[in-house]
């Protein structure tokens, strides 16, 4: 796009790929995230001394902080993302459900308000019916969730959920939802501009999870047919239009027995956005930047052509069996190639993976003309991928893509863990 860039980084990331590729770089703090990547003052200072016009918050860290988005805008810098008011509404999971229910989306049955007491929790759980899930109101990313199968478990899980919520999200507010036994996680990618034009890029199936962290994602979902897809995507677009939301966003659902239940909305770019790019041909990050610049989307829904099938494997720096993190020196990195094989990664031979951050080090994204062709291509790409010197979860992905249940598309959000625990 011809836009100059400034890479901000912690001391631990001074040799990171984005730092080398950017036009300028600014070290914003020590390795601890709180003092660097989660430090709004340092990031704003960096923007100020480099005369930056806009900030892209990336994924994770401050990308879902409505407070940060507001501070950025108040300083006359464009925040590449949605309006901070929408981030605020959707950031509170209880308020988000309320809002979406108001606008006509089906939601997971649960408490309409934060849980006030143990008695309150017991009453609601009786109404909804066990098993129930206790979730942090300010949570997300699959963290801070506790299951209770009966009243006894509920009494134990409630205080535990509160302290986890306090530790992870600085807020011990929790709510209760019906626990669905075999749902799929299906999410809809939307893109909207500031002129209220909204399009969807179909859905992603992110049911392959371990400890509520997505491991592998695919688009479209093998569980949906054309009709179901059209219905849910159009409902979501209508809701986004009513909200007046702009930029990229993902509306997440649990899907069970043919019914959708709204779970939460992510008001940011997601890690797995790449599979939607592969099947639609639309560059989502580029669209975000254009929207932030007040440009119109420039494409109508009828012009969006969803074709083929794409799968993304999250390659983590961890032991494929014990899942123990494995930071360290990458002695050799070879990226697979060929038509429709994409690797989004900051790895290079000689790169030292720091121990301070998320274990995700590469995304292998493959497209095929249909799901079977995609799986075949993915198998080859996984074999071709070389990351030596540290342990990575490539063998786990190879197990998944060779598994009959996966090949048949017959899995739900518990499938991977059940398979690993066998």
């Amino acid at each position, binding site marked *: 796009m011809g836009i100059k860039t400034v890479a901000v980084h912690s001391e631990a990331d001074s040799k990171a790929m984005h730092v080398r590729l950017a036009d*300028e770089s*600014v070290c914003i703090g020590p390795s601890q995230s709180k003092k660097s990547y989660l430090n709004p003052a*340092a990031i704003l200072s*960096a923007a100020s*001394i*480099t005369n930056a016009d806009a900030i892209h918050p990336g994924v994770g860290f401050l990308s879902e902080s409505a407070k940060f988005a507001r501070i950025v805008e108040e300083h006359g810098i464009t925040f590449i993302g949605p309006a901070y008011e929408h981030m605020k509404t959707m950031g509170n999971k209880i308020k988000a459900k309320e809002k979406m229910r108001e606008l006509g989306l089906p939601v997971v049955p649960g408490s309409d308000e934060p849980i006030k007491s143990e008695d309150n929790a017991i009453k609601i759980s009786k109404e909804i019916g066990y098993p129930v899930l206790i979730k942090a109101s300010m949570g997300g990313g699959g963290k801070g969730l506790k299951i209770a199968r009966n009243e006894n478990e509920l009494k134990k899980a409630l205080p535990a959920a509160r302290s986890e919520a306090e530790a992870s999200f600085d807020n011990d507010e929790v709510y209760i939802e019906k626990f669905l036994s075999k749902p799929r996680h299906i999410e809809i990618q939307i893109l909207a501009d500031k002129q209220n034009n909204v399009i969807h890029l179909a859905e992603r199936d992110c049911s392959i999870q371990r400890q509520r962290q997505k491991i592998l994602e695919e688009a479209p979902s093998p569980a949906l047919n054309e009709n179901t897809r059209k219905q849910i995507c159009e409902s979501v677009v209508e809701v986004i239009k009513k909200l007046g939301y702009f930029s990229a966003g993902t509306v997440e659902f649990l899907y069970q027995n043919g019914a959708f239940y709204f779970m939460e909305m992510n008001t940011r770019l997601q890690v797995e956005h790449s599979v939607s790019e592969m099947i639609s041909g639309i560059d989502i990050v580029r669209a975000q930047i254009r929207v932030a610049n007040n440009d119109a989307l420039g494409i109508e829904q009828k012009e969006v052509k969803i074709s083929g099938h794409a799968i993304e494997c999250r390659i983590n720096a961890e032991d494929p069996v014990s899942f123990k993190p494995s930071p360290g020196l990458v002695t050799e990195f070879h990226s697979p190639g060929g038509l429709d094989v994409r690797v989004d990664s900051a790895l290079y031979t*000689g790169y030292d993976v720091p121990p301070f951050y998320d274990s995700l080090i590469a995304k292998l994204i493959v497209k095929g003309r249909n799901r079977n062709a995609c799986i075949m291509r993915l198998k080859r790409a996984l074999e071709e991928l070389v990351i030596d010197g540290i342990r990575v979860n490539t063998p786990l992905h190879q197990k998944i893509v060779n598994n009959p249940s996966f090949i048949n598309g017959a899995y739900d959000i518990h499938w991977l863990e059940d398979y690993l625990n066998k």
Partner: protein
Amino acid sequence: MFGFNIDKIVKQLNKLLDETGLTEIEYQVRGKKIKVSRNIHSQQSQFLKTETRTEKSQLPKDHKNAITSPMVGIIYLSNDPKSEPFVKPGDKIQKGQALLIIEAMKTMNPINAPRAGTVTKILVKNEQPVEFGEELLLIE
């Protein structure tokens, strides 16, 4: 410096290529142009050279004596544009004495000496932007 002897020029440009690690040099004088380039070995392309693009201190990192920046911001060597700088090279300073100011987000943050000593070198200029960890001055 360079004569019009082609052999001599090529030799000298080649030497420059080796010394600087550049891949291509183009030399033009009075309408005559010559370009010398080198093939990159495939092994070299795997290792990206870590060249710093911003103006950073060229001194080797002298952690023992260096005071480093605790934040991102702009350096001011004196209290205001009309005043004398807080310190000069050669000054003897006490612990806690003001050395310079870093402006970050419209707030002025004084940077004080963590120990007593003598200021040997000031590594930054007035109004220079600095990043976290950048060396500001040396105190012995």
